[in-house]
């Protein structure tokens, strides 16, 4: 797999805004950014309201995903280009989520909304209306998704990559530094996890580092690429960014995202927790 198979540049995006069969979608938790100006023609996907079950802590089911994409005007044959704020965290999450439900024609805009804005490219406030489709999804591909029991079993056997900041990993902070500090019951990390903050996989402008730089980064951190890998963070979006780097850019085959992440693990009763830096 090459970078061009999974990422598009901002220039490519600008050149293909009106290309039939290409749908741009902005994915964010806070969709006020989209409402204030988005890539012309892009539809809006709300990370929380559209992708999360409103009652249980889980994703919308297959029928819900089909209804969402149909309503957004995304067809099974469309190439979906995802982008968003926060260095593409939620867009990477959506990318992983689209793959989970079997939509293979999906790419990320390299650098996301940040790169688009830093380039000084056009943002539009025009309402975007696409014709309804009749989208059909597949069952979730659980080879991409890790649940808590598998994570506990992975201690000392599989690679566990904690992609939060060093202070969250050591237990000094419970959440990223742009958020009030509230989160799981306990601070720390899963024993045997290595700490490779998601930000090390990205350049300052939000674009991903090269596959060679990424391979070197995880090799230096002690990742054994002959073993399966599980990535986690706090709620599963930063680890989607790292899942993308490991699975889509480096091309490692067995990589799962643990979307329960620290807000689940750090509140489990009876599981081992380690604190301190490595």
């Amino acid at each position, binding site marked *: 797999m090459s970078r061009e198979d999974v990422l598009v540049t901002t220039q490519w995006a600008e050149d293909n805004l009106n290309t039939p069969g290409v749908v741009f979608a902005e994915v964010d*938790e806070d969709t006020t950014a989209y409402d204030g100006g988005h890539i012309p023609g892009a539809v809006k996907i709300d990370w929380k309201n559209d992708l999360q079950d409103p009652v249980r802590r889980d994703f919308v089911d297959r029928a819900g995903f089909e209804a969402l994409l149909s309503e957004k005007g995304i067809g099974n044959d469309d190439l979906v280009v995802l982008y968003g704020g926060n260095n593409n*965290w939620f867009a990477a999450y959506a990318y992983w989520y689209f793959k989970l439900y079997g939509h293979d024609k999906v790419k990320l805009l390299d650098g996301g909304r940040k790169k688009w804005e*830093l380039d000084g490219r056009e943002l539009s406030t025009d309402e975007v209306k696409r014709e309804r489709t009749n989208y059909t999804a597949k069952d979730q591909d659980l080879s991409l998704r890790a649940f808590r029991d598998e994570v506990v079993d992975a201690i000392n056997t599989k690679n566990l990559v904690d992609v939060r900041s060093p*202070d969250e990993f050591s237990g000094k902070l419970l*959440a*990223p530094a742009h958020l009030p500090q509230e989160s799981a019951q306990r601070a720390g990390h899963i024993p045997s996890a290595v700490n490779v903050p998601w930000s090390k996989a990205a350049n300052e402008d939000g674009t991903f580092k090269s596959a060679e730089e990424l391979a070197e980064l995880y090799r230096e951190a002690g990742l054994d690429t002959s073993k399966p890998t599980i990535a986690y963070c706090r709620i599963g979006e930063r680890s989607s960014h790292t899942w993308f780097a490991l699975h889509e850019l480096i091309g490692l085959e067995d990589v799962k995202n643990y979307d329960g992440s620290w807000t689940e693990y750090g509140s489990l009763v009876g599981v081992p927790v380690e604190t301190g830096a490595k």
Partner: protein
Amino acid sequence: MSDGCGAPAQTAIAADADTNGQVVVAGKVTGGEGPLGGAFVRLLDADGEFAGEVQASAEGDFRFYAAPGSWTVRALHRSGNGEASVSAEGPGLHQVAIAVA
């Protein structure tokens, strides 16, 4: 408990000085013609490692919930970049201004 990861609205006003015991690093980004909105502000630790990023408000305001220590805030904007240092000894509001050129 916050179950999201998006940043709250970016403000750094004096009336907001009650930080509930948190170490808050906040301030304003300015350009050649006053407050500069929409810059991407990155919080870097004493080793220059990335710790967080927010997008400044339309008035140029930003804020981070940090830990005690020395920090660098770095702003990226289509008109240029800038950075500044701040020492946050403990809980409270630690203000820092960034000039972008």
